[in-house]
């Protein structure tokens, strides 16, 4: 139940939004000359990576505008909101080492429920 800062409407509950999956995947212009594999990459394949992830979101129950969101999918931390057509800003975040790594805090997952000996508060 995190909050999203819509670039047009401001901060709203996530239930007003619809996630459209990975951002920055441009629809190919010359699809006829693409191989099946290349086309399938565009249609079906998404990184779905843990950690920093650029996503498309739509303020479905609000202004209905699409925008981009940079989110740490391990912690739901929103790192940046930017408009369609813009490139993702570089923002520092705790990048879990994939595939099984964890951000040091925030995921609630088993590996980070407890503090490790000597870990600072």
């Amino acid at each position, binding site marked *: 139940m995190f909050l999203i800062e819509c670039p047009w409407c401001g901060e709203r509950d996530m239930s007003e939004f619809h996630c459209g999956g990975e951002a920055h995947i441009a629809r190919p212009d010359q699809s006829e000359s*693409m191989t099946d594999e290349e086309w399938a990459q*565009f249609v079906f394949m998404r990184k779905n990576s843990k950690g920093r992830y650029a996503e498309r979101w739509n303020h479905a129950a609000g202004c209905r505008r*699409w925008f981009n969101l940079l989110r740490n999918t391990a912690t739901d931390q929103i790192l940046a909101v930017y408009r*369609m057509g813009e490139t993702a800003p570089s923002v520092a975040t705790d990048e879990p080492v994939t595939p099984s790594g964890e951000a040091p805090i925030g995921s609630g997952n088993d590996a980070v429920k407890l503090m490790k000996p000597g*870990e*600072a508060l």
Partner: protein
Amino acid sequence: MAASRQKTGLRTQQGGRINRDKPVSFTFDGKTYQGFEGDTLASALLANGQHMVARSFKYHRPRGIVAAGAEDPAAIVQIGPDAVETDPNTRVTEQEIFEGLRASAQNCWPSLSFDIGIANDVFSDFFPAGFYYKTFMGPPLSWMRFEPFIRKAAGLGVAPTDRDPEQYDSTNRHADVLVVGAGPAGLAAAKAAADAGARVILVDETNAIGGALLSEPEGSVSLGSKPADVAIQKMVDELHANPDVTVLTRTTAFGYYGDNFVGLWERVTDHLAPTDRVTHMPRQRVWRVRAKQVILATGALERPMVFDGNDRPGIMLAGAVRTFLNRYGVLCGRMAVIFANNDSAWATAFDLQDAGAQIAAIVDIRRNLSGALLQKAAHRGIPIHAGSAIVGTKGRSHVAAAGIRVLDASGMISSKANWIECDLIANSCGWAPNVALFSQSRGKLFYDDDLKAFRPGASWQQERSVGAANGAYDLQDCLDEGRNAGAAAAADAGFKKRIPRVLKASHTMLVQRDLQIMPQIPSPKAAKKVRAFIDLQDDVTTKDIKIAIQEGLHSVEHIKRYTTTGMGTDQGKIANLNAFAFIADHLGKSVPDVGVTTFRQPYKPVTMGALAGQHVGAHFMPRRTTAMHPWHKAQRDVVFEPVGDWLRPRAFLREGEDFHQAVQRETKAARTGIGVLDASTLGKIDVRGPDAREFLNRIYTNAWSKLAPGKCRYGLMLKEDGMVMDDGVTACLADDHFHMTTTTGGAANVLGHLEDYLQTEWPDLKVYLTTTTEQTAVASICGPGCDRLVADLLDDVDPDPETFKFMDWRDAHIQGIPVRVFRISFTGELSYEINIDASYGLWLWKKIFALADSEGGTYDITPYGTEAMHVLRAEKGFIIVGQDTDGTATPFDLGMNWIVKKSGDFVGRRSLSRSDTSRDDRKQLVGLVTEQPDFVLMEGTQIIGSKDEGAVPVVMLGHVTSSYFSPNLGRSIAMAMVERGQGRAGETLYASRKGEAPMAVRVVGTDFLKERSDGTI
């Protein structure tokens, strides 16, 4: 042995935070009891000597009241006057009594005191850890055979038999500072935050403010210069007087979610007698709170000792015994044995003695006790057994004696048993911060070696834990932490920093000191015979956990699932830490190395009613109705059906007709007389802008460049994967202006799809989309010669089909009201769709029917519903997206090659030539006619290639998507997706049927009207 226990007179002469002027009577298991206003069901039953209130989940062992609050594991009962207004699994420690309250024991038959299920206890060796996994590993059917019996034997309460007649509500709230828990720390925090000017919400899950202070004898603690009770009341009064502060009692913070979103569950009227409940008040209310800052002052929970025979009623947590005594004025026993590993339980002994109970012994596993403590007990003449433990108990449905033995330095038994008669064992294995909400907030816990418990470490959200929830058990520490956190939270929420006033507490409380943990008290019995319970609700003993470990399960999460420890309605609030410590001990690891199970929302069970709130019945999913709905509703007998969000008439039944007959009549009338359909629900999107035409070219599979104003065209829309997503007719209003229609259910999706492409892929296109579905009402008029009716309606346009051609549209007027008439058809019959401003929809509809012969007009007009519409379109072979397609059909699969343009890109084009979509053995849409013309196939019927089903697995060629009896063709018709279907025309296939031989069917084209005129059917 139980001679010392008396059933009555356990209420103290004075004291307790109850209203002794207001007696309340209630029933438990049919017997009437007396209590006082302010009692919980637990305190009132205890006052009547009734400890045993339930039977356990698995072994049906007697279960008594162990704790005094939400953490109690197994004292759960069924509440309510009848089978409808009933709540299972209600904790007796939380349910307040009211006049006429009816409670009953659950999970026992025939009665609480004599329960047949106790047989499970005798055969407990056959129900070890992992019983379910081991016993039901056979073929899948064996579980299905056993499950009903197991469920019956091992159930908890009984679900209501009918829909809940109560009202529930929910509300949203923003707060600067939300404080959970109104004990000394929470109260101090709320006050400091409120004094700084913050909007504060303070919640407590009990009926009163004060927390642990309410468990202290009245007058024994003072805050500032006043007795605690007076000081608390003053603070509460101040908070109530502050308009920016909301104080909620009987309110549980059940879930801590992202960005400081916290769910609160308020029991508004559960504590009131039905006659005192105000009818407009909801029974319960969920508060959805978004707080800038959260302060968790959720206190600490006491751990029970784990020893053989520790589950008998009358064995209670020492802190709970004090709470029942000091908050409710109830003696939990007259002859008590205290069993402790820390100082706090000794306070229970002293308070009990002051209230008139005898303390048979204080048994403390610590060998070295503080001199002050010993002196105080000795002064009171209490027998002390230091370095000793209770290693066994006696008693049937209530504890009657405690077996005490001396332990040696290594914690082993070193003496003979000393049996002491008692009717109460008050035990304490120390206190653990209640970190559930903190952990839900994704903060990290750390193991505090002094507390021998986990407490909050690094925070993840804007949250602070204070007081006992943070491991501070001293009253002054609680007040100081709360005060500082309240001030800091207000400052972080943007309020001016203020240094709040210090509140001094008098120190007379005995708190946990010099804690010494023994994960399991030793027993002289053979290990096999020891029954030391860790989880009292789920009947998990140390033996079960040992078995799990022996069988190779070493992770706490695995052991939890294998043994069910920490599951159930209490989620192991007092059991978990003991389980972790026992596992750690057994594995030779430290507790933090073993770790914790995950604390998940909700903190405790929340009723489904409260979560649903007002979203029930008609509010569950509001139905949209058309402008003509009042007319539909007024018909003699109309059957409605939900379509998307809409409620549409499915058929209009005439006198003496059943549904099927009505549909047949309506379907026939649309091809013989004049049929009128309310088509207002079709999605309509206004597409406008200089690039609108180009946009349609890219969105639809066909070409739109040459569609002239005044003309319409059918379009098919694909997703990028090449699968059909929607269809509809779009009209060109002007070169830069189109009127698009979509399916009723797909309107919102289509608009979203179009917006997505416009905003993200083609922002260079100047196109504007507006949904106009609800602005326009549509009457679809259909039937041979219906042009005469339309001519009578229109002021200024001649509908003559010779000049007003198929797929044309015209602007026209009806009595001066502008309308737009489309000559389009979903039936194959001559048809006009009249679009009018929705506010004139009903007027238009009535105007049409005023021309019917039944109304004195000259036309044979029949209103028809969606079912007849389905039959009519199927007769013509038109698809319904979502019925004949399921997201796996391309235009080619549907035999609609004609609608795919030869050149130019569109959404989904490239996918049509993928190897998978272009393979020749795909399922394709065909028409089917049954060998028996009057037999109507069931939709979903599997199509097979042979007369007999043969051996499993039977090769399925496809399935029936639409099937009807067509009155116009006088036979049944069906559409189906069949493998290589387009090449099978004339072939005989078979439709599988349950319990009957497959029915022969012939493959034909999907346009059944054409097939008839061609003579094929």
